[in-house]
């Protein structure tokens, strides 16, 4: 903490301090405003919405928007609400979280504690894969999935998430294991403890903090993905983000903003909950891992 601005308790310092709080409160309101508008709009009746008063609290709570969004909203010709697409997203994101995290843990372990000739080059090349714009692989990936019979399916999408998640999960675990006490590793090697035994007994149990980072990262990114999901799915296999966009874009007739906002909140809620529950660990890990290289 460096309370330079607010050193002594003179009058100017008090004014400065008040100013600091005022600015911060202003920013807090700015960041909260869209969420607030979403929530109040979702529980207003359409008449009330069309009468204006963007920031007003609803005169009467109306859950029509939520009911419609969850049960009846139409995506294309399907009018079953957001629920089926939530399930699609849940399946794809769960698999695309567990598998790359498990593989990433093993990769990171090998790359940091069992370096071999070329392991740094391997890591560098894999790392580049974490930064490519995915547009560069979109066309071949779509053809590839068609070729093996996975086009427009949840299987194909999940496979895509797994493959392009590996550079990230490997990066996290590698950067975590790099700061592992080297003496411990060497002692284990001299004792002849096996490669996998050391991983299973010592390395993996110690890596819980970075495992949380990897899990949150993969879950959030795949849940929020739109580029791959819109390319690799069709109506039945669409994820919730594709469904939401489709639903908001192609609604005909009067725009039902309350339904739109309820659908948007439903789609955003899982990652928001993950952030509120485990966000602290994530940020700590990100700062230690990805950002500092």
């Amino acid at each position, binding site marked *: *903490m*460096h*309370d*330079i601005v*607010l050193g002594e308790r003179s009058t100017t310092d008090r004014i400065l301090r008040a100013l*600091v709080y005022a600015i*911060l409160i202003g*920013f*807090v309101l*700015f*960041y909260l405003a869209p969420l607030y*508008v*979403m929530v109040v709009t979702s529980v207003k009746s359409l008449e009330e919405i069309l009468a*204006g*008063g*963007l920031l007003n609290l609803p005169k009467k709570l109306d859950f029509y928007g939520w009911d419609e969004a969850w049960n009846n909203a139409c995506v294309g010709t399907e009018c079953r609400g957001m629920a089926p697409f939530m399930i699609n997203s849940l399946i794809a994101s769960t698999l695309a979280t567990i598998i790359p995290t498990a*593989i990433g843990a*093993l*990769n990171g372990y*090998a790359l940091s504690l*069992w*370096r*071999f000739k070329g*392991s*740094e080059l*391997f890591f560098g090349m*894999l790392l*580049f894969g974490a930064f*490519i*714009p995915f*547009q*560069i*692989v*979109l*066309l071949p990936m*779509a053809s590839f999935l068609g070729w093996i019979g996975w086009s427009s399916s949840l299987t194909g999408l999940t496979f895509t998430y797994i*493959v392009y998640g*590996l*550079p990230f999960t490997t990066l996290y675990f590698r950067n975590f294991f790099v700061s592992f006490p*080297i003496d411990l*590793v*060497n002692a284990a*090697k001299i004792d*002849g403890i*096996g*490669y996998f035994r050391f991983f299973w007994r010592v390395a993996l149990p110690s890596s819980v903090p970075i495992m949380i980072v990897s899990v949150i990262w993969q879950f959030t990114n795949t*849940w*929020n993905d*739109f*580029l791959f999901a819109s390319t690799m799915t069709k109506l039945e296999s669409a994820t919730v*983000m594709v469904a*939401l966009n489709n639903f908001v874009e192609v609604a005909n007739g009067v725009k039902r*903003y309350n339904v739109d906002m309820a659908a*948007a909140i439903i789609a*955003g809620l899982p*990652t928001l909950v993950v*952030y509120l529950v485990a966000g602290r660990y994530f940020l700590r890990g990100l*700062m230690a891992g990805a*950002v500092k*290289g």
Partner: protein
Amino acid sequence: MAITDNSIHVPTSQPRKLRKGTTWVGRNLPWLTLLPTGILGAIFIYGFIVLTIYISMSASKLVPDYTFVGFEQWAKLWGMRRWGIAVNNLFVFSGLFILFATTIGLVLAILLDQRIRHEGAIRTIILYPMALSFIVTGTAWKWILNPGLGIESLLHDWGFVEAQFDWLVRRDRAIYTVVLAAVWQSSGFIMAIFLASLRGIDPSIMQSAMMDGASSWRIYRRIIIPQLRPAFFTAVVILLHMAIKSYDLVIALTNGGPGTATDLPSTFMYDYAFDRSRIAIGAASATMMLFTIAAIIVPYLYSELRSHNRSRGHA
């Protein structure tokens, strides 16, 4: 480079109790572990990059046609008016996005570093947009910015009857609404980067400067902000990388419109590759995106990995 006491290639040099390590598999376990990922990376990252670049140099239109035509499609791409708009928008968008997100992130970090009450809660609020999908926030901003019932009508309610705020549907202004939504979503993360960096500065440096009677403004400008140089570097690289990859937000907020007014290279690529089925042009635009990102990321990764190894060398 590699740390010698950390790698054991030759198990035969170890004393006694050698177990599975003596078999070929045992000796080569580390790279065997990495083999599946290596194969996947070779095909799905590097193989596909090469393939896309090749498609961009082929005669492909509706279907892949692997006749090599050299840089013909690239030339065609750069001659297209719409690509020009997309590239121009990318400059405008990324410039403003980086400027505002960095400034706001830095200001917030400095303010939060003043022993603020409820700092944790404020940080949580500033950062939550990062957890949300651009499709979700784009949907929300689209509603807030819509000229009929959004901010504009709010301004009317507040007595500014003449007020107009129709940027979302104006060709010359729509790109700024994308900047607004993107800054709202990403500035919190930049704050976190700067805050982490501020907390890493040795407090004694500042204390001695205060002893010398320097004003807090001067201390920040002359001493603290210059020390944040690595954080600035990281923030700009991350933001630039985000700007070039930006796709979902534009789709949800403006869908590239009105007309093509908010097209970015990413939306251009998708439209040509999938909706218009001009595969080679789509591939060429993706190649341009890759080159741009590579020009930024490769030197960054190189410097990061090098400094990382150097600092590890003393461990």
